[in-house]
């Protein structure tokens, strides 16, 4: 039997699902507000309901984002020269022969993606809260409206890449989101520093 190692615990898995589903709901309703998609009434009933779902979905997203701090932040901040090597090689995604420096529990791309998500996640959550809780306070609402949409733009660009890289582009990765474990051999090839640190 293949030897497995645990990369994510039950809490990490659950929280990532909460984050991703809340993000999906927020994105769909967000597009609804942006482009007046009345077709979404079949999903939410009406725009009043959609606003309630969007606001409270934002709260769920914010809480979930807070908990990711414990799962990913320390690892994401531990950047080294290997990360520069990874960036120079484009993560090995542009050539089958590319050799990339050894990676820790998260590879460089994952670290940078997490920091990106954290920064713009906090921006989109904070600006959303201001629009919700300080209605009519013109300067704050206008600034928040701009930041909310700017962050949204960046996130809808980043998320498809994140989903692609976590599924089709890297076979064997998506099972982390389901079981939390990966084959030891797979981990050795992709996260050798992490495997070494665990003493395998």
């Amino acid at each position: 039997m293949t030897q497995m190692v645990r990369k994510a615990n039950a809490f990490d898995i659950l929280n990532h699902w909460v984050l991703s589903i809340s993000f999906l709901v927020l994105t769909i309703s967000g597009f609804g507000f942006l482009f007046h998609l009345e077709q979404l009434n079949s999903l939410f009933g009406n725009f009043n309901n959609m606003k309630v779902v969007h606001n409270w979905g934002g709260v769920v997203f914010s809480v979930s984002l807070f908990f990711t701090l414990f799962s990913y932040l320390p690892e994401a901040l531990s950047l080294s020269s290997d990360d520069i090597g990874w960036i120079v090689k484009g993560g090995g995604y542009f050539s089958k022969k590319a050799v990339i420096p050894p990676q820790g529990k998260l590879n460089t791309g994952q670290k940078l993606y997490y920091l990106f998500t954290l920064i713009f996640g906090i921006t989109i959550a904070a600006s959303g809260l201001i629009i919700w809780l300080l209605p009519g306070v013109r300067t704050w609402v206008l600034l928040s409206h701009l930041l909310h949409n700017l962050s949204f733009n960046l996130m809808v660009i980043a998320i498809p890449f994140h989903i692609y890289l976590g599924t089709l582009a890297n076979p064997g990765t998506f099972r982390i989101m389901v079981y939390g474990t990966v084959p030891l051999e797979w981990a050795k090839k992709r996260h050798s520093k992490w495997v070494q640190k665990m003493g395998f």
Partner: protein
Amino acid sequence: MAKKALLISPELCIGCRGCQTACKSWNQLSGTKTTNRGSYENPPDLTPDLYNRIRYVEMSSETNIMRWLFVSQRCMHCDDAGCIKICPAPGALFKTKEGAVAFNKEKCIGCKLCVAGCPFDVPRYDEKDKISKCHLCSDRIAEGLSPACAKACPTGAIAYGDRDSMINRAKGAGYQKIYGETDLGGLGALYVFKDPPKVYGMIEKPAIPETVVFWHKVLKPLTYIGLGGAVAVSLLHYVAVGPKKDEGGEEK
């Protein structure tokens, strides 16, 4: 249909506030108790129950001890309306065929973004958190009637008609500049002033907030392009380069 407009001439206004009363009467808006602030101006600001009010500007100079200006303050019915632009709820704010900016409380989701989008600080919210403002008596004008304020005005200070004829009328009365003739695509409430607009308490160059224009023109289309582009690039990568296989070319 020809665009309609109000032509407001403060020089003709006698400050009787018949327009305020007629507006409340037609739109079934209740009165509000206010306190004496030492001015005949009353109430002090627009409220959810006050769509139109006369602003009293009291000023004195050496040649004129007491000059009293009366200006109707209300929704300006912008052609290019910031409130409609920023509103996330379809049908909550809309343009009528006469050019009025009207609203539908049932569609309003109470987010108050229109308050931030309006250059004139007009939208107010009622106790149920629904938008409330002048709608140019859209129900009356749809039937070919005048708005209640214009109907009630005894001096012609608030006139209503085809926008073009209102402009001609103002020019015929000797006014070179008409406030709102071209601002924001052309306002549905035109004003003629003898002094600079700010003397009457009006903004000199009204405009939709720049952040809202930028969001509307740049960020909105970018959302679709960005999302679609990211998906397309991912698929292209899958076809052109393909997934990372565990067999080789990994870390060393």
